[in-house]
């Protein structure tokens, strides 16, 4: 299998989908500059730079999506979505329903998220939970280059608006990516490592951290099962519950703030639907209720570490 970074895999996915479907187009601040290979192949009408104006980028995508195009927009960093909330949440998320199903909004909004660039909280906040809570939207957040390709292809083909978050820290880390029409369906989690003692659920950049923690746990004789959610909405509830029913122990991990983060939904889901199987409390590890600092050591300390995860899992198993 060829090796690509998530950044490259995303480019490949977009190119393949643009080749397959003439209604797919891409725009955003600097996309035509940064993805000039796409401009070369598909022309400036289908790959466009925009003014610096996230609200109209997202609104234009919603309007275009409802009338026959399939836009992919790049909103750069997750906090910039604060300017685009109306188009995403109030228009793309709600107007299908409010129109009684007259319109659909097949669009994909890309954004980088999480720490790793040392530029502070106005570039670094994990807000995926906002969109999971908002009706009419789907949300994906891959942890591997292969999933970047496969989930993005599925997202572009999906007839609903999809928020596609990619962790900045993973963006340039190469991984194996299947060639050809590799499509990963939205809504299916992946068991990245089977195990019987404790379930670690995560997504995005903390997924490899969980795998590393599982290695460490294995050395102490604890068999951790690691689940990569991949899609945050639809959420693969079945995969979550199946694993917890097997292990009886759960640690949920993400970089996003712990408070009212997606981990809360997963813990609540389990506390409601797998209560009988639980052998102990459900633990959540996530970022503090604080903006992310630019300072390197503080930025690094924001997200749960291998040691944090291993310690939490061990505390459940003892």
């Amino acid at each position, binding site marked *: 299998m060829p090796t690509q970074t998530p950044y490259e895999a995303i480019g490949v996915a977009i190119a393949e989908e643009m080749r397959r479907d003439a209604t797919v187009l891409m725009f955003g601040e600097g996309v035509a500059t940064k993805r000039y290979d796409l401009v070369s192949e598909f022309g400036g009408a289908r790959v466009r730079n925009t003014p610096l104006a996230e*609200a109209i980028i997202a609104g234009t995508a919603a309007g*275009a999506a409802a009338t026959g195009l399939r836009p992919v927009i790049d909103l750069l960093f997750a906090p910039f979505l604060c300017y685009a909330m*109306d188009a995403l949440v109030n228009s793309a998320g709600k*107007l299908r329903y409010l129109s009684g*199903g007259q319109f659909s909004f097949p669009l994909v909004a890309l954004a980088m998220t999480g720490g790793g660039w040392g530029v502070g909280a106005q570039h670094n906040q994990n807000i995926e939970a906002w969109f999971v809570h908002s009706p009419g939207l789907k949300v994906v957040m891959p942890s591997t280059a292969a999933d970047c390709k496969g989930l993005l292809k599925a997202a572009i083909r999906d007839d609903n608006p999809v928020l596609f978050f990619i962790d900045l820290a993973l963006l340039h880390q190469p991984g194996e990516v299947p060639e050809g029409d590799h499509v990963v369906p939205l809504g299916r989690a992946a068991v990245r490592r089977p195990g019987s003692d404790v379930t670690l659920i995560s997504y995005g950049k903390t997924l490899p951290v969980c795998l590393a923690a599982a290695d460490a746990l294995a050395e102490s004789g604890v068999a951790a099962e690691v689940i990569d959610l991949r899609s945050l909405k639809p959420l693969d509830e079945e995969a979550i519950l199946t694993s917890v029913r097997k292990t009886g122990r759960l640690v949920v991990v993400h970089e996003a703030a712990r408070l009212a983060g997606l981990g809360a939904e997963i813990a609540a889901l389990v506390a409601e639907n797998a209560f009988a199987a639980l052998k102990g409390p459900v633990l959540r590890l996530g970022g503090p209720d604080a903006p992310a600092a630019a300072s390197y050591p503080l930025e690094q300390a924001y997200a749960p570490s291998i040691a944090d995860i291993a310690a939490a899992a061990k505390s459940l198993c003892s």
Partner: protein
Amino acid sequence: MTPKDRTIDELALLEQMLLARTYEERIIESSAAGRLPGTCTSVGQEAAGVGVVSALDGDDLILTNHRSASHLLARGADPGRLLAEVMGRRTGYCKGKSGSLHISVRELGVLLTSTIVGGELSLATGVALSQKMLGRPGIVACFFGDGAACEGIFHESLNLASVWELPVLYVCENNQWQAFVHRRETMQGDHIAEWATPLGVDSATVDGNDVMAVHAAAVDAAERVRRSGRPFLLETYTYRSRGHFEPDDQAYVDAAERAAWLARDPIELCRQRLLASGRLTPEAAAAQTQHARERIDAALAFAEASPYPDAAELTSDVYA
């Protein structure tokens, strides 16, 4: 391509305005009586709405906002299905889910109506991009208020339409009010049209209470958009004769300003002109009024007899 014949019958425009007025008045009565939810009516703005919509082609597309009745009716929407929608009934254009504020009618090219002030401005560029990229005929008419023009999305929308050369006819109904705030409190000048110029968008302001003037200006504006493929902003200068949202006692309204505008009521203006020219007789005028009443009575009866949506509609149509 020979230009289309766009001669218009003023009588037909009067009829459309009258239908809209009658529709709104029935809503006002019925909502005061508790038979209907409140709405944002277009009373006083019928010439602005009808004059523009009558200037559009069948394959043009429309985006509008919360004050949309005259646009919808002039476009040919069935008053019964509109009232049903206002009343949240299953026979409404949006199955009762929209209510009065976001009524879209895809079959009539009325798309993506938003009640987020500025939502229509946010979506219009994308609709126009589809028209352009998919090679479809038809320009995009986007109706919005003077209040919406104060939202940042106005600036972003016009700028993008200008830079990308998108066929959007922006129609600003400057009705002097933004809910409970007079336009005077929210902007230095009197006209939104000027705001378009530095963005490279040509514009014009027209007396929004004279339906023939609006119609002519809109034909001209639409033609410019069609020919150039570029946006244009038409400002219809008019007045919201009723309150923001029924019921509304308008205690906050300047009486003298209101009286001056009411003296130029768009329907009376048009009717008197037609009566004066002899094109309309008093009898025909009375018959026209009567006919509008009958249509709206029938519509209301239809709407009231319509059932509410099934409970299953709570969660249908969310995802494609």
